[in-house]
């Protein structure tokens, strides 16, 4: 029972204030219990890892405590919550309207500059009651959502940077329903935003203005899995971690893995061509997706759901949709090639004294570990500190000294002793050669998970440390860290600059942490970061996509000389979505993508 002592308000409260407090508390409790216990509330709860049933306490701004892992052996088959699921943090945002401002450590100030310049396109209609009735007829009452709390969660992205003002959330349960919705929206010229797990980092999954949100989370069936060909066919709303668990039972794994796996959905992964931690081993989704089913803006269902490993009949259209961020069509089903689950996984956590050693280590690893290398990540000193300070359950594998760079290497193979020998030989050789100053090798799965916990927990920890500006860049390996150092010099003491990422894929995640969002600091960062990347012929978005954040910045990676490329992209968009209703204001520059 909440008493007035627990509110951060002066004890002498007026009656009115007390009623307000009570109302706020009541709303919080009912909001909380609905979101935790009622699977129908949260579009993603139903399939998210069952963290809530294991003694989890609802703490504002804090993650759930790591559940005692050994109790799991005593017959309970409850999954352990190790990372808070993204929808949990989303629900937190839903309660920001209440007076508990001080307890939230997550910054969710509306991220100014990019969006204020955009105007709502007047050709899009606004929703009226006829539209709502029509949707109710197609989907049924339950799946047409206008409730403020749920809309609030769906309108805000994971970072808390972008907030739309949509008044309608739709949850179709089949491709047919998606087709009907889109056909209607196209005829009425209603803008829509396809939404999956809402874990994107560039504002691509939330509305900018009042676009209708189409959440695919209810389409979460696994349609079939063929063990012989190792092809999985499932609907686009399946959560990645659920697919990984399902395949685990069959002896296979998903070809991609990312920190957001507890909440992200495969449709979203494909629409953004997600990269992740294992790209260095299994390649990108363009290679692993064998087919997909997508619905175009006018409701046409494109059935490209082949399950053939090789099919050279005509143009391979599915590649257009992979990475198009929902702007060409809504992905509703996917068929994906799954690699076999190999028994021998080894993880090593190493320390290097400088960036040059990290690079040389990468080359050596590719050569010496070769076919068994499955992940190569690097973390710099500042990111590591942030994780140790803010991530619950994080433990420094290499105490007591702090090193300049840390590298996480994972190998996956079929023969335990052979792999271990190979890895040990490589590590000892690197140590003797001075490339590695210290390191630890995980001796069991628990230790391996704790190393990954550190790497996967970096984005979350940075969020807890304050406001963050995130950049995801592809830069040649030799030059990668130069950008981080230049940014440090440029920003001085006003911000903390952190660099980490998929060194194996030349992908840097540059994060700049400040106590609050500050336009002055932003001006120092952009467009310098983009220009720098452009100068070194890198990509301003390696894997996160353009979304809203970089919609007008494509020219940094597709320069003026290749402007015709961007024109061609705009033509394709016009061809597949003439009214421009799918995810407007994003991906391509506004000047080109508008349909007028």
């Amino acid at each position, binding site marked *: 029972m909440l008493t007035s002592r627990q509110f951060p308000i002066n004890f002498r409260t007026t009656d009115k204030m007390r009623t307000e407090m009570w109302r706020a508390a009541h709303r919080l409790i009912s909001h909380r219990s609905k979101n935790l216990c009622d699977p129908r509330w949260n579009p993603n709860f139903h399939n998210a890892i069952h963290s809530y049933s294991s003694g989890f306490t609802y703490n504002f701004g804090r993650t759930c405590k790591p559940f*005692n*892992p*050994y109790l799991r*052996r005593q*017959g309970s*088959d409850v999954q352990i919550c190790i990372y808070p699921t993204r929808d949990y943090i989303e629900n937190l945002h839903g309660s920001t309207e209440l007076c508990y401002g001080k307890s939230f450590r997550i910054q969710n100030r509306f991220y100014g500059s990019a969006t204020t310049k955009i105007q709502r396109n007047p050709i899009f209609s606004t929703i009226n009651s006829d539209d709502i009735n029509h949707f109710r007829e197609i989907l049924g009452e339950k799946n047409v959502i206008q409730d403020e709390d749920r809309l609030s969660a769906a309108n805000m992205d994971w970072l808390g940077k972008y907030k739309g003002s949509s008044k309608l959330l739709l949850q179709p349960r089949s491709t047919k329903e998606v087709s009907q919705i889109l056909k209607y929206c196209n005829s009425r010229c209603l803008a829509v935003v396809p939404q999956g797990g809402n874990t994107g980092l560039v504002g691509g999954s939330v509305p900018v203005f009042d676009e209708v949100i189409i959440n695919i989370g209810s389409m979460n069936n696994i349609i079939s899995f063929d063990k012989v060909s190792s092809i999985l066919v499932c609907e686009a709303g399946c959560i990645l971690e659920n697919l990984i668990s399902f395949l*685990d*039972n069959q002896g296979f794994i998903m070809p991609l893995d990312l920190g957001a796996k507890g909440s992200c959905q495969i449709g979203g992964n494909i629409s953004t061509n997600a990269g992740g931690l294992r790209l260095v081993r299994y390649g990108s989704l363009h290679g692993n997706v064998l087919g997909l089913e997508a619905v175009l803006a006018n409701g046409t269902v494109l059935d490209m759901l082949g399950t053939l490993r090789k099919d050279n009949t005509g143009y391979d259209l599915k590649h257009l949709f992979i990475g198009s961020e929902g702007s060409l069509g809504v992905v509703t089903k996917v068929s994906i090639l799954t690699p076999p689950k190999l*028994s*021998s*996984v080894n993880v090593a*956590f*190493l320390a290097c004294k400088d960036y040059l050693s990290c690079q040389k280590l990468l080359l050596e690893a590719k050569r010496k570990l070769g076919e068994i290398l499955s992940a190569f990540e690097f973390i710099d000193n500042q990111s590591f500190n942030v994780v140790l300070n803010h991530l619950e359950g994080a*433990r420094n*594998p*290499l105490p007591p000294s702090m090193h300049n760079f840390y590298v996480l290497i994972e190998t996956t193979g079929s023969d*335990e*002793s052979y792999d*271990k020998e190979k890895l*040990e030989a490589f*590590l*000892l050789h690197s*140590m003797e050669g001075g490339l*590695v100053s*210290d*390191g*630890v*090798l*995980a*001796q*069991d*799965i*628990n*230790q391996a*998970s704790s190393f990954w916990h550190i790497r996967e927990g970096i984005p979350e920890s940075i969020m807890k440390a304050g406001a963050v500006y995130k950049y995801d860049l592809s830069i040649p390996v030799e030059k990668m860290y130069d950008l981080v150092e230049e940014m440090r010099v440029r920003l001085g003491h006003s911000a903390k600059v952190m660099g980490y990422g998929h060194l194996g894929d030349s992908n840097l995640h540059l994060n700049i942490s400040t106590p609050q969002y500050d336009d002055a600091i932003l001006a120092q960062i952009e467009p310098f970061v983009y220009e720098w990347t452009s100068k070194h012929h890198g990509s301003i978005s390696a894997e996160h996509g353009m979304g809203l954040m970089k919609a007008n910045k494509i020219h940094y990676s597709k320069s003026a000389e290749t402007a015709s490329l961007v024109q061609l992209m705009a033509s394709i968009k016009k061809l597949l979505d003439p009214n421009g209703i799918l995810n407007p204001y994003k991906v391509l520059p506004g000047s080109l993508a508008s349909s007028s």
Partner: protein
Amino acid sequence: MKIMVAIKRVVDYAVKIRVKSDKSGVETSNVKMSMNPFCEIGLEEALRIKESGLASEVIAVSVGPSQCVDTLRTGLAMGADRAIHVEASATLYPLSVAKLLKALADVEKPGLLILGKQAIDDDCNQTGQMVAGLLNWPQGTFASKVVLDKEKEVATVEREVDGGLETLCLDLPAVITTDLRLNQPRYATLPNIMKAKSKVIKKFTPQELNVDIKSDLEVIQVTEPPKRKAGVIVSSVDELIDKLKNEAHVI
């Protein structure tokens, strides 16, 4: 003073266990094996005692098939000084292991014998107690804190029991079995892995130790627990009463 730590090679605790199709046991081929977590804690405690200067040597011991050597190497990489492997390919039950450990303790004469409280594959929680009985040594099981006093030759052990914590004072030599909250085991660092390669693993067989490992127990069948049935949503109170009466037979 020497400390002997018994460690067991078990299926890694994070692996999903499957029962073999012939129900004779658990699937262990092609499954990741590693050191029993409680044994890891025991070894960590031994290493800490050694580092505080109260012991001169830590010996890791394991009983089982030839692959146990991998687990012993991990123990050596954590910091144990030497290891002993008793090679036995048959499945061994706690009493046989206790007899073998007694034989080794008679040879090595350690001041402290540390084991994990139970193995995560059989959950027996018997070996430590049995070996203490065979050796006639005092035992402190489920230890959550161990403090050694060299001059008085005693170990003060705080035990986690159902009612709370119990503190015992044991004369050395003694047997201690470790519980979860005793410590957090260290990782195996690369320099230590390098050093471990040159450390000695001595081999014994049960015959050499004059121990009869024939067991009085035989596993007849291993089955999975029944799957949890899905919950049913009832539409009315009458239906609920009907189900409670006729299906569940509780009213």
